[in-house]
């Protein structure tokens, strides 16, 4: 699908979105000679259906169980840790009066950032007519949903009384009515993250409907077939439905693009609207958005490389796909590196001693190790991707993508913990060490993420069949 806007290629980009067929045939012929095919192996549409449906129709492989059981174990570790801390109170964390945000908000920002790549691929690359996205968008959108779920957990747990989380919503109540504070960036976060999750979920489900119909018609009978039939909404691939569907997809992509930029901007307002040195800067919104796409794209690479190897999807996730994503990682890494340099320069040049101290303390203070992990993982590692051979080497890209995610986690740690631990008054300075409970909660969030992702790979088509079929001939 998606041909409405993705019609032809860059060569038809100047014509109207819906061009006439002779133009599109001519341009796809030109594409054939200029570009390698998006899907390798000269697949036919029915081979695409078979390749992508087969993993869902056979029993789970030992490899899948080998990944699923440890993930589930990590999730249970997280459940145990969260249960203990809710029963006992968040005094079980290593927070103190000075460092009131640490692991929890670091994890929150980290996971929200991971989610951004999914929307980038599904919406921004759609509007930019990057047709290679069809092989990765479904899995990347699923990743977004699971990452935002993980992100949402941390502020809710941090409240200490998660059963009162609904107090964050403005609803008429018996307390006055006492309303929420619409001037607080923390409340903006509630709206941004929940809207982001809802729109991502709807976008993802809409994309799934034609593929669920394919599964419904393939399976013929059984419990799973009835579930697919129920969820596929009676889809029959009718022309009028496709036409409206494509328009809605385009509209949602148009809505999701500013949304994805707004979400991490709003997350950065949590920091930027405060007066704390190291937080109070105008560069934070673009810096956070670039960082989010950077970390998210790395996570997509990690997951796609695992999927390509274990699920035999080499024809769909080709070296060209890995190459294109590695280029996005390189570009966003440069943006992030540029932001690091800019904020350092601004602080030194500002003549404000608190700002200057905050940044020198990041690079040379007691937490300098975390700062240098951040710089080496986020700025130095991606430099490998200047070389085509490196972008096409699965082991190199895989290791780099994991290092980048470690680096991006530390970026949030650096911003949050180092800035808080050294504020204006030396008498309130403090250190911070995470407790086992906090570490177990972080580990548990990875368990939740991978458990959900593996279940998704097992029960839903992880490549958008209807979209891939549409780009076969180009």
């Amino acid at each position, binding site marked *: 699908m998606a041909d409405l806007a993705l019609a032809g290629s860059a060569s038809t980009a100047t014509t109207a979105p819906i061009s006439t067929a002779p133009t599109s045939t001519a341009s796809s012929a030109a594409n054939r000679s200029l570009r390698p095919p998006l899907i390798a192996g000269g697949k036919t549409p029915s081979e695409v259906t078979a390749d992508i449906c087969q993993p869902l129709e056979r029993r789970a492989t030992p490899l899948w169980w080998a990944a699923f059981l440890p993930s589930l174990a990590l999730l249970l570790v997280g459940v145990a840790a969260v249960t203990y801390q809710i029963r006992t109170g968040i005094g079980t964390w290593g927070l103190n009066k000075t460092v009131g945000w640490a692991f929890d908000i670091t994890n929150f920002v980290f996971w929200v950032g991971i989610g951004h790549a999914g929307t980038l691929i599904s919406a921004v690359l759609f509007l930019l007519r990057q047709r290679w996205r069809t092989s990765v968008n479904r899995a990347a959108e699923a990743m977004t949903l699971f990452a935002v779920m993980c992100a949402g957990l941390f502020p809710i747990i941090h409240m200490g009384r998660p059963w009162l989380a609904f107090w964050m919503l403005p609803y008429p109540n018996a307390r006055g009515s006492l309303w929420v504070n619409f001037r607080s960036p923390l409340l903006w976060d509630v709206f941004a993250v929940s809207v982001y999750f*809802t729109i991502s979920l709807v976008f993802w489900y809409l994309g799934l409907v034609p593929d669920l119909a394919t599964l419904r018609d393939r399976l013929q009978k059984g419990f799973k077939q009835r579930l697919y039939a129920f969820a596929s909404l009676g889809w029959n691939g009718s022309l009028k439905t496709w036409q409206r569907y494509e328009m809605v997809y385009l509209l949602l992509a148009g809505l999701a693009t500013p949304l994805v930029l707004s979400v991490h901007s709003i997350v950065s307002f949590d920091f930027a609207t405060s007066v704390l040195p190291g937080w109070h800067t105008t560069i934070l919104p673009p810096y956070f958005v670039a960082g989010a796409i950077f970390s998210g794209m790395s996570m997509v690479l990690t997951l796609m490389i695992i999927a390509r190897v274990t699920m035999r999807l080499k024809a769909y996730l080709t070296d060209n796909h890995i190459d294109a994503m590695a280029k996005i990682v390189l570009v966003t890494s440069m943006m992030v590196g540029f932001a690091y340099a800019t904020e350092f320069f601004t602080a030194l040049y500002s003549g404000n001693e608190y700002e200057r101290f905050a940044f020198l303390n990041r690079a040379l203070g007691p937490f300098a190790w975390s700062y240098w992990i951040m710089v080496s993982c986020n700025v130095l590692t991606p430099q490998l991707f200047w070389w085509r051979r490196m972008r096409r080497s699965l082991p190199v890209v895989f290791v780099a993508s994991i290092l980048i995610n470690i680096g991006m986690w530390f970026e949030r740690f650096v911003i949050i913990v180092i800035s808080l631990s050294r504020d204006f008054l030396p008498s309130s300075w403090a250190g911070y060490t995470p407790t086992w409970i906090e570490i177990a909660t972080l580990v548990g969030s990875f368990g939740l993420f991978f458990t959900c992702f593996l279940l998704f790979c097992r029960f839903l088509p992880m490549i958008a069949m209807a979209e891939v079929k549409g780009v076969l001939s180009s």
Partner: protein
Amino acid sequence: MSSGSMIGVFTSQEDVLAAVRRLRHEGLVIADVQTPYAVHGLDQAAGLRRTRLGWVTGIVGLSAAVAMLGFQTWVSAAAWPINVGGKPFASTPAFVPVMFEVGVLAGGLATVLALFVVCRLYPGKQPSLVHPRVTDDRFVVLIEVPVIKGPTIKGPGAGPDRALAASICRAHNAIEVSTDGVEEVADAA
């Protein structure tokens, strides 16, 4: 399916596109085309009007955004004004993020709901497929041909349109053409 329709089954998007153009050129009525993916240009070839769903997004999204701005102002300046560091009660710039988010949420959900309503898609609906493989790899054109009452030279109901439509489909590499109604073909396949 109505007895006045017939189908042509194709295996490639180029063929179905060319066949639909030709059929319409000859004045035949395309009732539907069922395809496994959105074939670019097919809506124009079949003479479909551009959908107006964009209006739903625009109107609902903008109204929700305006309503949310009003609600925030009412909450913060009228219902329960709280003096936070001497800031004005109706601090409009601070209401922009939530206004935007709610506008996007309402616009997005309304658009998708409108799609489901106008396309009559709902959970558990029985699909009406003209061919069992339209969600896999077959492109099927459903052509409306007027039924001619009474006996004709070629037999009951077989007007000249049927023969013409069938020959156009075959000329464009249709692998299957059914002039006898849809259900039989669906069963045979």
